[in-house]
């Protein structure tokens, strides 16, 4: 589907040198970068360019990255990768909770960045037609839809991937590390907060009562598993 054009990437960063460097690297990898330096203009640029992925610096003039992230997420499920100088708990968690799929801490290696972007764009590949059930949800993998009693539930691609990963093997308990590898594409263990935050977000959308999850069940001390169908 996107064999030639690997993807349009919107880079939201106020540091022109870094933005330019990101452009060089991304073009070198065959992406199509576009740039915006101001948080206030980020949403307009997003609507205009319709990127496949957003690279978002958290510290921006005007609207800050968190706010931009929230706005983009409100109207699209497009993958968002945050660039942050702070790996502190609060910053990262706030970023993830505002809708970012992944984050990457400065300074990063170009390869690392590209790997993350690829991992997020990977799901654009054509999936095989597949019908899954988890709890009282019906998942159409090819159609990228989740329905409860015929009602569609809107999920971001990442949340969808997470749900599918769990639903495909309902007998298996997934550790956070395994989920990081399968869903986020990390080859070795990274920050498990990613999983925690996105499980929370997913639950808030698919669970009837997020306080008493039935779809994504926590297995204490190990990880998560799909609830019984």
């Amino acid at each position, binding site marked *: 589907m996107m064999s030639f054009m690997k993807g349009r990437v919107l880079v939201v960063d106020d540091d022109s040198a870094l933005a330019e460097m990101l452009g060089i690297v991304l073009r070198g990898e065959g992406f199509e970068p576009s740039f915006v330096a101001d948080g206030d203009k980020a949403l307009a640029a997003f609507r205009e360019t319709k990127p496949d992925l957003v690279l978002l610096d958290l510290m921006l003039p005007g609207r800050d990255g968190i706010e931009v992230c929230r706005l983009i997420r409100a109207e699209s499920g497009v993958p968002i990768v945050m660039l942050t100088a702070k790996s502190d708990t609060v910053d990262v968690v706030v970023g993830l909770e505002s809708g970012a799929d992944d984050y990457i801490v*400065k300074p990063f290696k170009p390869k690392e960045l590209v790997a993350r972007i690829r991992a997020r764009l990977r799901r654009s590949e054509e999936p095989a037609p597949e019908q899954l059930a988890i709890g009282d949800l019906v998942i159409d993998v090819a159609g990228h839809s989740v329905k409860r009693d015929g009602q569609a539930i809107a999920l971001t691609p990442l949340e969808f991937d997470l749900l599918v990963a769990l639903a495909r093997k309902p007998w298996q308990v997934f550790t956070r590390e395994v989920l990081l590898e399968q869903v986020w594409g990390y080859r070795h263990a990274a920050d498990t907060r990613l999983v925690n935050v996105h499980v929370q977000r997913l639950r808030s959308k698919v669970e009837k009562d997020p306080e008493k999850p039935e779809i994504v069940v926590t297995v204490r*001390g190990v990880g998560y598993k799909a609830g019984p169908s």
Partner: protein
Amino acid sequence: MSGDSAASAPGRSGGRPGRPVGRKATGSNWGRLFEGGLLEGGVQGSPVIRLFMRWVRRPLLPVMRLWRRNIQLKVVATTLLMSLGVVLLLGFVVIGQVRNGLLDAKVRASQSQATGGFAVAKQQAEQDVSVTGDEDIAPEGHPSQSVIQWMSDLVASLSSGGQGAFDVVTLPAGGESGSGRGPRASGEVNPTVSVPAELRERIDSSTSPAQSYTRVVYNDDKESQPALVIGKQVNDPNGDPYQLYYLFPLTQEEKSLSLVKGTLATAGLFVVVLLGAIAWLVVRQVVTPVRMAAGIAERLSAGRLQERMKVTGEDDIARLGEAFNKMAQNLQLKISQLEDLSRMQRRFVSDVSHELRTPLTTVRMAADVIHEAREDFDPVTARSAELLADQLDRFESLLADLLEISRFDAGAAALEAEPIDLREVVRSVVSGAEPLAERKGTQIRIVGDQQPVVAEADARRVERVLRNLVVNAVEHGEGRDVVVKLAAAGGAVAVAVRDYGVGLKPGEATRVFSRFWRADPARARTTGGTGLGLSIALEDARLHGGWLQAWGEPGGGSQFRLTLPRTADEPLRGSPIPLEPKDSRRNRGLDDAGLPRGGDGEKSATVPVGQPGSGSARDPFPLPPAAVTPTADPTALPGSGARVVARSGRASGSTRMTPGTLGEAGAPLGGGGKDAAARRPSEDAGDPARRTGDEGPGDESATRDAERDGEASRGR
């Protein structure tokens, strides 16, 4: 040489009662001998005396304590004593004066009365001489009946003038008797007993009147009374001398005097009590603010800097309060300034680190792009590109470590503890270190991973600590094996990383955790460590409420031990792994007893263990407990850097922990620091496993460890 051994050798201090190290024989000065000796249990000598002293002392102790601590009591008691003395003195003086005054008046009145009486007697005798002149013929020695009668009349007539005020007594002169002029007395007075013999002699020997004090004794039931007696030798009508006495009872004076005495005593008592009460009130006025100041000072030192004294008036106490408040305010100001400064500095470090990141990212990416394309460059440029990339890596890790440290300094590090199996962490760390180990020709062995070693910990941090320790061990292990040992016991789990490389010199075991510390500044920086790894590891351990300690001996390798509480918030009391490994040279000293030892071993025979500075002390194992002489070198006590302080929000002063020691079987025998040691008896009672070991945790082991300067955990 072995000065780095931080753990007490097994069996060394076994079973010794935990006497405080600092206690010595009572001091040379007397005050201390008294206080410390008599009152506080330093009495030497036979057990019986000691027992007796204890028995005597026990009820007195609270009183003595109150006396020592309560200035009000002291002042009131002293005031009472002193005023009592003054009142007594005053009373005696006043009573003496009153008595003298009373008696003087009485004596003068009595004398004039007596003189008159004597004159009357003399006059009557002369009158009667003319009357009875004819009867003078009566034979000598047999006074005529008329003289006897005359004398009785005389006594009656003389005494009739003063009924009750005085009595009259006549006695024969010169003690003669049987002359018929026997003693006569008025008013039932016993004449012979009432007049003192000494006075009679004086009267015999002179013709002038004489006086004396006596007690009047009555023939009837009347009580004897003090009295003044005045006597004179007078002639009777026959011209024969006889003694005439006037007795003046002092009853009235006695009464007056006792009245005065009673009044004085009552007044004195009131004065004393009142003075005591006044002293109490006055001292209270002074002491109350002082106590308030003390209480507030305590609260201030406990960190409540906003505490102030209440100031009323303008007197000295008020000035004290004002000065105190001013001091507190300045203190608060300075502290908050320092805090601000420190916060700003930490913020600055954090900001700098963050600000550096964006340009660094650009540089990093640019360098990588150049690095990727280096094949197209000439060799010099290509090499430069490589160096650029390598050094950027190093720069990055340094920056990351700096940021991590600044996060710890800012107290921003948060623990995300959940139950983890340390075996998993160790395995992943070891597998991560395998490539490096292969390059160095080192084999990493894991020991003690048969059972799960589960603890509530932050996996990310624990992994970072262990990775650091393992990589360090491999890097400094000189190609020899590295052993990672796991153990769990009691409320603690531990991982020890042992290498057999260059080891640590005495004193280095504590310094390894210093920031940017390097074992040998001259040594080439072959390994690209940032110099912050162990500092961060120590902070990580501390964040868990755990210990990170090092032991090492030069040439004998080193061992780093991470001890974590099994559950967060549980204070550590010991570690399941002894800090000094069993295969240390010192511990092997016993096993190789028959073999010639190295330099270390030779010294061990002569140098007693436990001497600070005698780093090479190696003693036979096991040493009789008594041979360990804990000294109270303050620099060697725990606290000179030989401990890890738990961070978790408790007052650092009370929760300091010193590394404990452990039994060989992994039973937790080790104690914490002094606090823990003090509590130990009761705690141990419930845990028989702790008693079975022959290794006494005690203070002295911790102290000695510290003395050996081998303790590696660092407290700040």
